[in-house]
C-alpha cells in the first residue's frame, strides 16, 4: 500500500563547534574564514539524525519517544520543513499541519477573534476555510465570551484551548504534534485526546513527540524510539516503550509495571 509519508535515508548534521552557528559578529566570521582557508577550523560536527527511513500509512498515530537530545524534535522539525535535512529525501502525499508550539504568531494585543484568523493563516489555512470553521473553533475552545478580548488578558488555559482548537480544525492529512497535549486541565486533555482519535479515524496520520509514555501508549498505533539519532522500532508500541524504560531506568521495574 502506498504510504502517506515516505522518509528515505534522512540525516541531519549540526556544526557544533563552528562559531557561525552562535550568533557571531562579522569580525569573528572573517577570522574564522581565514582559519578555514589555512585548513584548520574549530568545526565539530554532530549527527542529530543518522540515516532514518520509514513509511507511514494514513490513519496511523506514530509516537516518537527518546531521551532529551536524542533527535526527536529534529525529526519533527525536518518533517515540518522548519529545517532541511543534510541528506535524504522525504515525500508527503497530503497537507501538513504543524503544532510544535501553542499559539505560534499569536499577538497579545489582538483579540481572540483576530488571533484565530492570524494563527490560522500562519498554520496554512485559507481565510475561506477559517470563516467556515470559525464557529466550530470557537465552540471547541470554549472562549465565546472573550472573543473580543485581547488574548493577553486570557488565562493560560483559555489561551491554550483557543490555540489548540485552531490547530485541531486545520484538518491536515498529516499532523505533527510536539508535547502539546500534555498541557491543560484533565477535561481539556480528554477533549484533545478524543479529537486526536477522531482525526486518526478519518484516515489522517499523526506524529506525536512526547515524554508522557501513558499518552503515547494509549494513543499510538506505532512507536519509534530515537536513540542518538537512530530510529528503533519494535514489534509493538508496548514493547518499544518498555525497552525504552528499561534503557533509562534499569532498576525501575515499578514504573515499567505502571505503564503496562
Amino acid at each position, binding site marked *: 500500500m*502506498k504510504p502517506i509519508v515516505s522518509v528515505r535515508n534522512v540525516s541531519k548534521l549540526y556544526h557544533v563547534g563552528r562559531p557561525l552557528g552562535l550568533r557571531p559578529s562579522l569580525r569573528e566570521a572573517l577570522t574564522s574564514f581565514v582559519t578555514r582557508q589555512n585548513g584548520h577550523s574549530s568545526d565539530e560536527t554532530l549527527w542529530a539524525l543518522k540515516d532514518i527511513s520509514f513509511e507511514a500509512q494514513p490513519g496511523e498515530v506514530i509516537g516518537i519517544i527518546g531521551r532529551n537530545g536524542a533527535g526527536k524534535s529534529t525529526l519533527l522539525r525536518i518533517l*515540518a520543513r522548519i529545517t532541511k*535535512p543534510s541528506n535524504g529525501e522525504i515525500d508527503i502525499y497530503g497537507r501538513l499541519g*504543524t503544532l510544535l508550539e501553542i499559539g505560534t504568531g499569536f499577538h497579545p*494585543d489582538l483579540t481572540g477573534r483576530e488571533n484565530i484568523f*492570524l494563527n490560522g493563516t*500562519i498554520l496554512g489555512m485559507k481565510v475561506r476555510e477559517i470563516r467556515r470553521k470559525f464557529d466550530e473553533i470557537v465552540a471547541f475552545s470554549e472562549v465565546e465570551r472573550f472573543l473580543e478580548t485581547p488574548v493577553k488578558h486570557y488565562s493560560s488555559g483559555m489561551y491554550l484551548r483557543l490555540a489548540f482548537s485552531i490547530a485541531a480544525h486545520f484538518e491536515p492529512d498529516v499532523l505533527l504534534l510536539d508535547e502539546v497535549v500534555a498541557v491543560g486541565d484533565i477535561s481539556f486533555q480528554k477533549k484533545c485526546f478524543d479529537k486526536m482519535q477522531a482525526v486518526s479515524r478519518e*484516515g489522517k496520520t499523526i506524529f506525536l513527540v512526547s515524554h508522557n509514555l501513558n499518552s503515547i501508549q494509549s494513543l499510538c*498505533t506505532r512507536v519509534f524510539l530515537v536513540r542518538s539519532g537512530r530510529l528503533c522500532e519494535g514489534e509493538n508500541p508496548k514493547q518499544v516503550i518498555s525497552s525504552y524504560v528499561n534503557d533509562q531506568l534499569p532498576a525501575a521495574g515499578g514504573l515499567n509495571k505502571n505503564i503496562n
Partner: protein
Amino acid sequence: MITLEKASKTVSQVANDANSSPARTAVSLPEEPLIKIRAHRRWAAANLLDLWVHRELLYFLIWRELKARYKQTLLGISWVILQPLLMTIVFTVVLGKLVGVRTGVTPYPLFLYAGLLPWIFFSNAVSNGSQSLVAGSQMITKVYFPRIIIPAAAVGVRLSDFLVASVVLIGLMKYYGIPLGWPLLLAPLLVIHVTLLALALSAWLSALNVRYRDTGTALPVVLQLWMFASPIVYSAELVPARWQWLYELNPMTGIVEGFRSALLGLPFNRSSLIASVVITLALLIGSTFVFGRMEDEFADIV
C-alpha cells in the same frame, strides 16, 4: 503550489492499518507528493511568486502589525504623517531659510515633502525589513511558510504608511497650486519600483542579519549617509557634472527625482531612472539567491 482540491481528485485508497476500526473512512492520496523535502542545496533562489500564493498570510502579517501598532497609541495613525511633516518643517527652516537652498520653481517645502515621502518609506522599510527575520524567530522555528513573506510583510507595513502620508502631499500640492497632470500616472509605477528595491534590500539584509547581528547596527549609519547621497533635501542639479554618473548609480536618485517629476510636472531624468531600474532588478535577483541559499538554515541559527 499544489492545493488540496487537486489532491482529492486522485485515486482513492482505503486506509487499513493494524489497528483499524470499522469507522475508518476512505482516504484518497495524490499520485504525486504534495510536499517534497530534499537536502539543502547550495544554489536555490527564493521564489517571489510565493508572495502571491501566500498573499493571505502576507496580508494578515501586515494587518497584525498595523492593528497592534494602533491599539495602544494616543495619536494613532497621525504618527505616520508627523514624521515626514516634522522633517519637512525642520529642513525648511534650517536649509531653506538659514542656508538658502534653491530648488528652482518648486517651493522648497513641497520639494522636500515629495522627496522625503519615498525616502522615509524606503529607509523605514529597509531598517524594519532587515530586522524582521530575527524579530520573527519565534515563528521561524515553529512553523513553515516561505520565509520571504516575513521581510515582505515588513515592507508592506511601511508601504501602507507611505500611502497614508501621501494624502498630505496631495493637500500640499493643492495649497501651492500645482496642477495635476498626466505625469502623475507614473507615480504608482515609481511606488512599485521603490517597493521592489526595498524588498530586495530587506530580503538580503534580513538574511544577513540572521548570521551577522552587526548588520542591524551598521544599517542606521548607512541609511543616514545614503539619505544625503540622494536628492532628498537638495536638488540633483547641485552635483557637479563630472560626478553625475556616479550619483546616478545610486538607485534612490532615479526614484526620488522621478517621483518628484511625476508629481510636480518637472522634466524626467531618463538616465538616472534607467540606471535605477537596472540596479533594482539586479538587486532583486541577487537577493532571491542570497535568501534562498540562507533560508534553509534560518531556523538552525536564528
